[in-house]
C-alpha cells in the first residue's frame, strides 16, 4: 500500500523544514541528494519526459559534497566527544567517531529523516552507502553552525546506546592500565579475586578487582573465568580512569549547543605514545572465532562426565518416565484433540 504519488518540490520543502534548514535553496538540496549513478539511469540518459522530478533542476552529483560533509561531521563530532570524554585517549575518540559515522548508522538516521525517498539514484532499493552519502552531502551544503546542530540533533543521541568497553576493545587492557597508573605514580597493580560462585557449573562467576598500591580499588568486574574477569575488570578500570562511567550524562540539545565546542579542536593524548614502547595497545581481532569446535565437544563431555557426576540430575529428570503422563494429545480430553490423519497408500 505504497504512496506512488509524490511532488518532489513539496517533499524537498518539507524536508528542509524537518532537518531544520528551510533557508537553503532547492537547487542545493537537489545537488546534495543526487547520486553519481543517477545519470546512468536509462530514462535519464534518454531524457524521457518526467523521468525523474528534479532532472531539469540539477545536473551535478554529490561526490564532492560527500567528502566535504564527511570531514565536517567528523570535526564536530570529535569536538563534542573531546569535551565529554576529556581524559580519554585520541584512539578511543577515533573509534567512537568512526563507529557513529559509519554507513550503517548514518543510513539509519537518513531513513528516519525521509532521505531515502528523496535521493536521486539508479539503484532500487537504495543502498546503505548511497543513503549515508546523501546525509554526508547534506553536511557539505550546510553552514558550519548548521552542521554543528545536525551533529548534536541527530548523530549524538546514538551515543546513548554505545557500550564504551566494546567500542574500543583493547587486546591487553591490564598492561595498558599498568602503564597509565605507573605514569600517575602507582607502584603496585594487582588483580584480586573477590568472590566466586558455581565454579563447576554451567554458569560460573568470578568477581575480580584491580587494586592499586594494595589499597585502592580502581576497577571491578565479573566474568565467566578468572582470565575473562581480569580483562573485564581492567577495562572497567580504564573507563573509570578516563571518567567514562554510567553515572555521567552527556549534554544533549540546548545544553550541548551552549558549550563552546570549538575550543576542543586539539586532539587528546595518544595512548601509544603515553604507554611504554613494549605495551600492546592493539585492539581485539573480532574476525577470528575464539573457540574451536573441539573445545565445544570437550566442554560438553566435561559437563556430562565431571559436573553431572557431582551435581547430579534433578529428581523429576531422573524419574522422567514416572513423571510423564503422556503427550498433549494423550493428556487432553478426546473431544478437544483434532484427529491426525494418516495416509494409507
Amino acid at each position, binding site marked *: 500500500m505504497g504512496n506512488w504519488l509524490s511532488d518532489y518540490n513539496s517533499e524537498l520543502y*518539507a524536508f528542509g523544514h524537518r532537518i531544520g534548514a528551510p533557508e537553503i535553496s532547492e537547487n542545493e538540496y537537489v545537488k546534495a541528494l543526487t547520486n553519481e549513478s543517477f545519470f546512468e539511469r536509462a530514462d535519464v540518459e534518454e531524457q524521457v519526459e518526467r523521468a525523474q522530478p528534479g532532472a531539469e533542476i540539477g545536473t551535478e552529483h554529490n561526490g564532492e559534497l560527500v567528502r566535504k560533509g564527511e570531514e565536517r561531521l567528523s570535526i564536530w563530532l570529535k569536538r563534542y566527544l573531546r569535551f565529554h570524554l576529556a581524559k580519554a585517549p585520541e584512539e578511543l575518540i577515533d573509534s567512537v567517531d568512526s563507529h557513529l559515522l559509519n554507513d550503517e548508522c548514518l543510513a*539509519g538516521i537518513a531513513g528516519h529523516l525521509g532521505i531515502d525517498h528523496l535521493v536521486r539514484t539508479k539503484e532500487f532499493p537504495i543502498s546503505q552507502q548511497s543513503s549515508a552519502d546523501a546525509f554526508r552531502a547534506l553536511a557539505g551544503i550546510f553552514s558550519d553552525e548548521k552542521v554543528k546542530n545536525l551533529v548534536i540533533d541527530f548523530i549524538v543521541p546514538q551515543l546513548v546506546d554505545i557500550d564504551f568497553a566494546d567500542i574500543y576493545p583493547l587486546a591487553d587492557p591490564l598492561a595498558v592500565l599498568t602503564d597509565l597508573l605507573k605514569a600517575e605514580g602507582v607502584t603496585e597493580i594487582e588483580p584480586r579475586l573477590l568472590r566466586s560462585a558455581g565454579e563447576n557449573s554451567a554458569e560460573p562467576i568470578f568477581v575480580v578487582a584491580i587494586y592499586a598500591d594494595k589499597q585502592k580499588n580502581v576497577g571491578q568486574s565479573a566474568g565467566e573465568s578468572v582470565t575473562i574477569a581480569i580483562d573485564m575488570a581492567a577495562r572497567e578500570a580504564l573507563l573509570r580512569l578516563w571518567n567514562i562511567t554510567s553515572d555521567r550524562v552527556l549534554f544533549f540539545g540546548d545544553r550541548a549547543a551552549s558549550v563552546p565546542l570549538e575550543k576542543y579542536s586539539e586532539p587528546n593524548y595518544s595512548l601509544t605514545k603515553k604507554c611504554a614502547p613494549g605495551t600492546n595497545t592493539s585492539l581485539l581481532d573480532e574476525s577470528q572465532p575464539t573457540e574451536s569446535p573441539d573445545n565445544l565437544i570437550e566442554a560438553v563431555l566435561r559437563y556430562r562426565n565431571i559436573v553431572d557426576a557431582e551435581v547430579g540430575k534433578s529428581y523429576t529428570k531422573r524419574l522422567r518416565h514416572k513423571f510423564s503422563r503422556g503427550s498433549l494429545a494423550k493428556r487432553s480430553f478426546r473431544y478437544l484433540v483434532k484427529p491426525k490423519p494418516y495416509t494409507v497408500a
Partner: protein
Amino acid sequence: MPSVPRVDRLKPIYTAAKALNFGWRFSDFLKIPAYNGISRYTNQLHRITVRFCKQSESSVGVRNFIENQIVEIGRKNPSVVIYAQPVRNSNPSIRAEYGNGRTLQINAKNMTETEVSKDFHLLFSRSGEPVVKLESRQSALCPSVQGQWTPITWLPTAMNTESLPAKQFSEHKSTATSATEYILQNQPK
C-alpha cells in the same frame, strides 16, 4: 484440567506473526523511533495522503475538511507534505507515512468533518510505532543510578573462605534484645 482447547486457526501463520517484530506484535515495551526527543524533537510524520471521491456521499466529510481546514494545517506543519488525491468510486481514506517506514491508513467513510479533523490530528501526533499492549508504562536508558542489588553486593567477605554450613552464618537474627546483650550494652556504673 484439560489443555487449552484448540481453535481452528491458521496456526503456523498466527504463531509466526506472534514472533515477528513487525506490525503483528501484540505486546512490547514503550519505544520511540530514532531517539526522538533526546536532543531535539522532530515530527515523525513525513507525508499524509487524503484519498476521496468527488461524487459519493461517503466522502462528504473529507471533502469539507479539504475545503476548510487542510490548508491551515499544512501551513502550521511545514515539515509534513499533504496530498489530496481524488479517486473515483473509492472509499475515502487517510494514509500517513512515518519516519520508521510504516504506513497507517484510516478509513474515513461516512465520517463528518470534525471526525476527519480529529483523526487527521491524531496521525500528526503519532510516532509511527505500532499500537501494542505496553509491558510497562516506562522505559529507561540507564537501569540504575545508585547501583543494582545483586546477591553478591553486600555479601560479607568472611563468607568467601568459609565452607557452609558455618555456625556464625546459621544464627537466628532477631530485633529483640537478649538478656546478655542488654547487660553488655547497659553496663552498670
